[in-house]
């Protein structure tokens, strides 16, 4: 009986006896060379792709160098306001006076986004998220761009409770906070700057609404003896507040002097915000309906005196008042494209910062503020009288999750290409 070895030897007798063809050595060398070249090519292509992806990411996230300016580092509004990326960095320190504050989504690796405030440096034009501890909601920016008020909040993002006020100093980085012990969520309205270092607001507590004055750095807010309504605007350290139909009140919070004034508007409904000129003598408002919009300017009169409000014949669509540059020029954000922001399928609605001569109605465009989000921007109104300046565009960092995914995907594709290539190479 033969063993399996013997049977295999017997079967192997059927094996072909043909000698291997000549030239295998040379063929093998050529094949190895081709394989090395091919492998090097795949590796090179992969490296180029990885470098390209990484380079694009670095390029998009790089901060452009500051622009040398004829006017040195004098603060100015930017001539164009860009929609900030959610992946902008947070300012590592106080950014200095800011010209513009933009509410924006701050993107996160794992948790979608949270709201934050992007400050645009008034001197360099640099964009960065402001480091605002316990940020809850945006508040007004002071006219000089040095102080930013905001609401503080506690709790998870979707169930946050506003519990206080804070003021961020963009020059020193200092944050002054006020957190009253109310036992319920904070109910503050009409928060507004009076001058550049004091806030006024109304707060409902214990069933009544009271008015407060808070000079930053001088302790907690103090109640005001007079009630203020919604702020029309400030002129110096005085604020003009609406306290009833046609009835307004000038309040010089520093001296506690009060002057009741009357402004008779031709329309029952007026858009906010309104604005008072730096001299305090002129007030402007917009009347917006679905069909038309009108810009109105009038002289503030003492109580009991009738003042006729004048319609400014300016070619503006949907003006939103930003403030006065002086007693002649009013700054508004108006729609710069034919269609409105709510027009169907319209992605091109553009808005611009316009300077309106209230005497002649002539309009000069001073800054492009992008799409509808630009109307939510808060300006340092003290800069409205200065020339705007061209600043470089902010970085637009690639979503790091996408960047990592592309890098990993490119590496995997390269590796797979190498494996497939090695498998496909046959004699």
């Amino acid at each position: 009986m033969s063993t399996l070895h013997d049977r295999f030897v017997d079967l192997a007798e059927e094996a072909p006896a043909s000698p291997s063809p000549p030239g295998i050595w040379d063929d093998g060398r050529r094949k190895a060379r081709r394989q090395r070249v091919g492998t090097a090519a795949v590796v090179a292509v992969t490296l180029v792709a990885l470098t390209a992806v990484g380079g694009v990411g670095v390029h998009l996230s790089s901060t452009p160098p500051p622009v040398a300016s004829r006017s040195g580092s004098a603060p100015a509004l930017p001539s164009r306001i860009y929609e900030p990326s959610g992946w902008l960095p947070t300012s590592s320190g106080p950014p200095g006076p800011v010209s513009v504050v933009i509410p924006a989504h701050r993107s996160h690796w794992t948790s979608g986004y949270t709201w934050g405030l992007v400050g645009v440096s008034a001197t360099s034009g640099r964009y960065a998220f402001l480091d605002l501890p316990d940020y809850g909601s945006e508040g007004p920016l002071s006219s000089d761009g040095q102080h930013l008020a905001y609401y503080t909040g506690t709790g998870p993002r979707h169930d946050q409770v506003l519990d206080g006020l804070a003021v961020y100093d963009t020059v020193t980085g200092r944050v002054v906070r006020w957190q009253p012990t109310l036992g319920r969520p904070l109910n503050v309205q009409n928060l507004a700057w009076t001058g550049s270092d004091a806030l006024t607001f109304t707060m409902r507590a214990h069933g009544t609404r009271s008015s407060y004055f808070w000079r930053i750095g001088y302790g907690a807010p103090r109640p005001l003896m007079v009630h203020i309504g919604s702020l029309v605007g400030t002129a110096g350290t005085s604020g003009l507040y609406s306290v009833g139909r046609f009835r307004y009140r000038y309040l010089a919070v520093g001296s506690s002097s009060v002057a009741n004034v009357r402004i008779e508007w031709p329309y029952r409904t007026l858009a906010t915000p309104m604005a008072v000129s730096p001299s305090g003598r002129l007030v402007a408002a917009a009347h917006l309906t679905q069909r038309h919009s009108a810009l109105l300017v009038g002289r503030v009169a003492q109580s009991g005196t009738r003042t006729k409000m004048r319609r400014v014949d300016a070619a503006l669509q949907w003006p939103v008042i930003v403030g006065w540059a002086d007693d002649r020029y009013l700054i508004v954000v108006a729609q710069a494209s034919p269609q409105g922001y709510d027009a169907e399928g319209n992605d091109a609605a553009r808005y611009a910062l316009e300077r309106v001569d209230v005497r002649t109605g002539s309009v000069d465009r001073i800054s492009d503020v992008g799409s509808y989000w630009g109307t939510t921007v808060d300006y340092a109104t003290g800069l409205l009288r200065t020339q705007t300046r061209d600043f470089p565009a902010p970085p637009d960092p690639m979503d790091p999750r996408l960047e990592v995914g592309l890098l990993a995907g490119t590496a995997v594709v390269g590796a797979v290409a190498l494996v497939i290539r090695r498998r496909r190479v046959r004699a």
Partner: protein
Amino acid sequence: MSAADDFEEFVVARSGALLRTAYLLTGNHQDAEDLVQTALLKAVPRWGRVREHEPYVRRILVHESVSRWRRRRWRETSTESLPELAARSSDVDARLVLRQALGMLAPRQRAVIVLRYLDDLTEAQTADVLGVSVGTVKSQSRDALARLRGLVPGLDGDAGADISDAAAPRQR
């Protein structure tokens, strides 16, 4: 002696043995020749750096055989029993049955069996060629033998004893 001369000498001396192994692995003349040529071609780039040429070429041969089987298996179907044979000489029949039985083994099992019982490699050498553990070689060998006993008449009983572990190839 240059590497090329050394290679040519190896091809002349060992291609016959390699072809026999390849034939048992593939069961087909053309595939066997192709397999040996491919293995030799793939051995060329590292020929000068390899000390033991034959184990190296045999390792390429076996791995290439398994890889080819994986690429081809979607085109092939296996059956549980061998087809009926026409009346031929008993030697030819025995070879045909054995070849077909080998073809019905899983490629790694086939490689283990061929390396162990044709090339007379030890379990450790077989494990080294296949890149698996000795335990895997043992289990694969046991399973392959059991299957062969069921497929090849005459491997039962006395013949089976001949291929038992006690009658395993001499250890080298």
